[in-house]
């Protein structure tokens, strides 16, 4: 039983008093920055990095990892309570989580988010322990054609995300695609739509758009209401009801599986995992119209998915030595300074370090649950804050968060601009979430389309010759048909009724 021996080794490292302490510190700091909008784990970890040079590598990694997955827990809190995604991965949590809060079910939503995250964290830990090497190999099957196909599937999914009219969802997604065009084109080095503004040369930041469209726009919409709707803190009991549990549990399981797989893909992220899970839940729901109006599954699925994805994104780095995203690149840099550079031989060369970090993730998830559940009652009280205090606080936190990304005042102005755009979108009855998905996926899709054609020397059949790419494209086509057909039918029905 290699696995048991490995886990034993891992836990013996993870539960030493020092490592437990730093795991707790990491989880606490992570929760905190997760709650603060815009202040992400990347900036925090880079700030804390110099402090860790004096630690044992395993202790340092345990703490840094704790910050990362802790942030995924914390990010959902503001998303649910005040419709403000604390982390990019909690954007979708705002859709149904905040609606639940408006109906007095904030406590239930927070509890489901925490429990779903815990479940996902535990399963993902086990997943990493059992299946790291084969999963990492799967990631390597993904080349440019597969990424293109995956993004195409995601974009069709973006339309599914929206609960309103399909034409509006498509329009908003296309707007997102156009915004994604801004910046320097990877393949040619040409700047597009930058108007010689240096801050635009690398494109607009995701956080800038998300904060503007969600945080600022929501405040603007609320401001014009003469009578503020008072939020009821709790309707019924604070905890989820039996029915809510029953609906959340399977969604959490599906979200965990999906998130674990997407996290492994290089370039996949917790945010993509959350988006996909939401689309999946909505697609398989018996009554999709409940989504966007406080569906429990819309909280449980994505919250599980983003936490699972955050954890499995360690796999490519720890098993192949390839960072899956910017944050993992930072972790890898840190590991090099500690003198333990990751590589494919990492697990066999540093078993105590590898298994120690993996097992600490489970320990950290237990801690996060213990930290978060009692806090729920406290967070819910925040809803009693009058708007005149809540709104300026949110606005200030958004500004700090965006400024902290690149220390750029221009980006804060961009955020305010997107706030106005978000306000207009809401006024026209358009949902902002598909815009964000288009914004994220569009540039990746274009980049990989052109790269695939560059590598195939211009042969378009490459997308269908490769099995994974062909499968994903067929999936996208089917989903597209499924999206179009019902609305097609509905318009026809309406036409009949008018006769």
């Amino acid at each position, binding site marked *: 039983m290699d696995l048991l021996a490995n886990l034993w080794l891992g836990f013996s490292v993870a539960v030493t008093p020092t490592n437990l302490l730093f795991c707790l510190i990491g989880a606490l*700091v992570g929760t*905190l920055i997760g709650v*603060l909008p815009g202040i992400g784990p*990347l*900036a925090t970890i*880079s700030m804390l*990095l*110099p*402090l860790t040079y*004096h630690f044992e590598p395993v202790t340092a990694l345990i703490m840094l990892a704790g910050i990362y997955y802790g942030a995924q827990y914390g990010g959902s809190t503001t998303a649910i309570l005040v419709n403000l995604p604390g982390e990019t991965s909690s954007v979708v949590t705002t859709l149904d989580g905040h609606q639940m809060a408006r109906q007095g079910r904030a406590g239930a939503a927070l509890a489901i988010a925490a429990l779903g995250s815990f479940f996902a964290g535990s399963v993902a830990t086990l997943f990493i322990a059992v299946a790291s090497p084969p999963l990492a190999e799967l*990631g*390597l*099957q*993904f*080349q440019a054609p597969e990424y293109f196909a995956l993004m195409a599937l995601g974009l069709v999914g973006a339309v599914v995300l929206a609960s309103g009219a399909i034409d509006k969802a498509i329009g908003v997604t296309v707007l997102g695609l156009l915004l994604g065009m801004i910046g*320097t084109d*990877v*393949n040619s*080095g040409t*700047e597009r739509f930058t108007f*010689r503004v*240096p*801050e635009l*040369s*690398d494109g607009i930041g995701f956080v800038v758009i998300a904060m503007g469209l969600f945080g600022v726009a929501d405040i603007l919409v609320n401001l014009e209401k003469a009578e503020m709707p008072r939020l009821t803190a709790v309707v019924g009991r604070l905890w989820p009801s039996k029915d809510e549990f029953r609906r959340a549990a399977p969604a959490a399981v599906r979200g965990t599986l999906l998130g674990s797989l997407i996290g492994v893909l*290089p*370039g996949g992220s917790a945010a993509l995992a959350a988006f996909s899970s939401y689309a999946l839940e909505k697609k398989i729901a018996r009554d999709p119209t409940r989504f966007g109006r406080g569906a429990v599954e819309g909280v449980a699925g994505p919250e599980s998915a983003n936490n699972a994805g955050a954890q499995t994104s360690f796999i*490519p780095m720890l098993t*192949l*030595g*390839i*960072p*899956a*995203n*910017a*944050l*993992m*690149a*930072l972790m*890898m*840099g*840190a590991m*090099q*300074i500690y*003198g333990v550079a990751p*590589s*494919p*031989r*990492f697990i066999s060369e540093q078993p105590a370090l590898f298994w120690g970090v993996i097992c600490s993730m489970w320990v950290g998830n237990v801690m996060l649950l213990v930290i978060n559940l009692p806090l729920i009652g406290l967070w819910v009280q*925040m809803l009693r804050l009058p708007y005149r205090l809540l709104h300026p*606080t949110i606005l*200030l*936190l958004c500004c700090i968060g965006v400024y902290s990304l*690149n*220390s*750029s005042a221009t980006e804060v102005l961009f955020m305010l601009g997107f706030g106005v755009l978000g306000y207009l979108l809401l006024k026209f009855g358009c949902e902002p979430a598909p815009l964000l998905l288009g914004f994220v996926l569009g540039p990746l899709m274009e980049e990989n389309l052109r*790269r695939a054609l*560059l*590598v195939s*020397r211009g042969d378009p059949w490459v997308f269908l010759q490769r099995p994974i790419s062909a499968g994903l494209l067929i999936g996208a086509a089917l989903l597209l048909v499924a999206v179009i057909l019902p609305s097609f039918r509905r318009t026809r029905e309406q036409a009949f009724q008018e006769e």
Partner: protein
Amino acid sequence: MSVTRRCAVAGAVLAVSAALSGASAQEWPKERPIQIIGGFPTGAGTDIFARLLAEPLGRVLGQTIVVDNRSGAGGNIGSEFVARAKPDGYTFLIGTAGTHAINATLYKQLNFDVVRDFEPVALLVDVPNVLIVNPKTLPEIKSCADLLAAAKKEPGKFNYASTGNGASTHLAGAQFAQAANVDIVHVPYRGTPPAMNAMMSGEAQIMFQQSIPIMGQLKAGTFRPLGISTAQRVAALPDVPTIAEACNLPGWESTTWYALFVPKGTPEPIVRRVNEEANKILRDPEFERKTKDMGLVPLPSSRDEFRQVQARDIDKWRDRVRKSGAQVD
């Protein structure tokens, strides 16, 4: 509530870092922390190295040093920020041969001048690019000579990955292809992680990659190093020949350095002091070991030597950029 908590955390962090950096001799007014601006994202080589340097440098100067990345436009956003900063000794830039030599030609319109607007402080390290292939995708290629023979036999077959248009990894590849007269196709990626993934999956077969992120891979044998882009072999990879030796291209080299700059007009004593301290740190055995582990070559040098290196490299890269056809606008 969140705000107070954040302050508490920030306070704790500052207290700990102050304790770690310690307080020593009073040097220049300590009104606020010194900042080292980086022009590349957090986690990039410049960021990692700046943080490594900031700790001992802060200790000897008795100052808190903060690394602040203002990334974008190939490092130009950070450079422009420092070019316009007050020359009071509180703002430094970790520049590279990319930001302070290559970009002068690569970008047609810069809002600042890489020579006139900066005072060079200290040359820090040479950053070699390693020519790598993946032994799983190209098992038969064991040396640069093998690679050149294979590439000549099938022109246009191999792809070389880079970390972006106009990045040193791209220019080294273009410069190599031209010198060796082989037809290999450039495939740019958005930074190191996707480029390395492409090398792993076999989408690209050849790459000039900076040593920092691949030291572990080279030791594990995932990537086979065929040559190193420096003029001499480097201590961390003693068995890897130079490109000049391995590919029979006498005189070929292509490296980028990291260096400290300040805005023009910064008081002379401050510049001199930081140059001296940086050189001392670069010669410190413990620090030297850390830089060598990352495959870097410490370059302690006088300010005049640094000035000459920069002037020479601006000319050298102008020629290489033009020949490669790379441009960004």
